[in-house]
């Protein structure tokens, strides 16, 4: 008798009573299913995390796109920005008009007729207009109805300034809003003017108004310094020209 044979006997005695449980196959299958489920859940959580992380910059890029972008992250409530609670149209109250306390802000035109909420001047009854404007950038809170984005908002930079321009157009009018950020410019340097500029105010801030320079399109513009280093230029033509000041007061740079 040697150690090896004694070891064999000892092992045989040790495991003589060991038998696999009848549920071994079921246990293995259950363990496999649990593992597969665990992996799938893990992958799902990872995918959701990646989607959530990717959503934030995508959402910001969408909000910077012009109004009417179909993939905008803004909720599609179907409600015009004119009908927002913070800017309820006063029934019967005339819209801000250049002829009433805002000299030089543009010629008096009638409402473009695209005002579904009855906010038009002279208390005219509201009539159904074109579809409301959706997907506005965060810093534009009012646009007349019926406008669609001309092209994605564009950013240009030169001489220490960065200008972001968004434009909308409709059947009978157009609007262009530009935000200028930078240093070393004053209200007079913001935008070229045609003729002698008029003086007005936007939310109590001094502003300059004039006709839109150039012969390509007719309209009015207003420009002001919202705060040091941030200037705003709003141009409007056609039916939107009459709402130039209201558009300007709705800009939150």
């Amino acid at each position: 008798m040697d150690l090896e044979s004694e070891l064999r006997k000892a092992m045989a005695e040790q495991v003589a009573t060991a038998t696999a449980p009848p549920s071994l196959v079921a246990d293995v299958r259950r363990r496999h299913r649990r593992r597969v489920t665990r992996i799938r859940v893990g992958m799902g959580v990872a995918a959701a995390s990646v989607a959530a992380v990717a959503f934030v910059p995508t959402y910001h890029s969408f909000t910077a796109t012009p109004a009417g972008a179909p993939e905008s992250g803004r909720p599609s409530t179907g409600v015009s920005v004119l009908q927002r609670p913070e800017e309820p149209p006063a029934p019967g109250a005339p819209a801000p008009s250049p002829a009433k306390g805002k000299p030089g802000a543009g010629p008096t035109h009638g409402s473009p007729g695209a005002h579904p909420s009855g906010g038009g001047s002279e208390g005219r009854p509201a009539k159904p207009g074109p579809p409301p404007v959706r997907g506005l950038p965060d810093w534009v809170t009012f646009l007349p109805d019926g406008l669609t984005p001309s092209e994605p908002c564009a950013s240009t930079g030169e001489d220490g300034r960065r200008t972001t321009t968004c434009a909308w157009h409709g059947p009978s009018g157009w609007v262009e809003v530009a935000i200028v950020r930078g240093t070393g410019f004053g209200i007079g340097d913001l935008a070229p003017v045609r003729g002698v500029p008029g003086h007005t105010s936007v939310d109590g801030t001094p502003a300059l108004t004039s006709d839109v320079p150039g012969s390509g399109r007719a309209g009015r513009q207003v420009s002001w310094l919202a705060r040091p280093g941030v200037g705003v230029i709003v141009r409007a033509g056609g039916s939107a020209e009459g709402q130039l000041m209201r558009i300007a007061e709705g800009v939150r740079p």
Partner: protein
Amino acid sequence: MEFVTDRGNALLRTASLLCGAHQDAEDMLQTALEKAYRHWGRLDADTDPEPYVRRILVNLVISRSRRWKVLREIQMARLPDTPAASSDHAVELRGTLMNELRKLGPRQRAVLVLRFWEDLSEAETAQALGCSVGTVKSQASRGLARLRERLGTHLAPLGS
């Protein structure tokens, strides 16, 4: 899963000797079988899957022992008995032998189990462990030498 039904007992006994505790052996065997089940497609239809499962089992036990080495934890099947004089020398010797076998390193224990319980050749043991035949020889020799050394006087009646 016919394979599990046929070879379940043998595999569980091997796992029990490799692990040293019956409960751990069941857990290890389930893990090994699940792993084999996952990759069952890699096996040829006419190949015996047992060496494959056995190799998974050995690797799992060695990996687990490496992890537990940090904890300095020794898994026992039951609470250690207090030594008492036994009238049956052979029974006492085998009990001591198994206790000493559990105290060996996982690789040495695996070599001894595969060589003397599974009756595998040195080449088959080397294949199961993924090492050379020389390593199997040296590990078996050292393992047996350590058992002889630790058993000491118990082996005297054996004449070794």
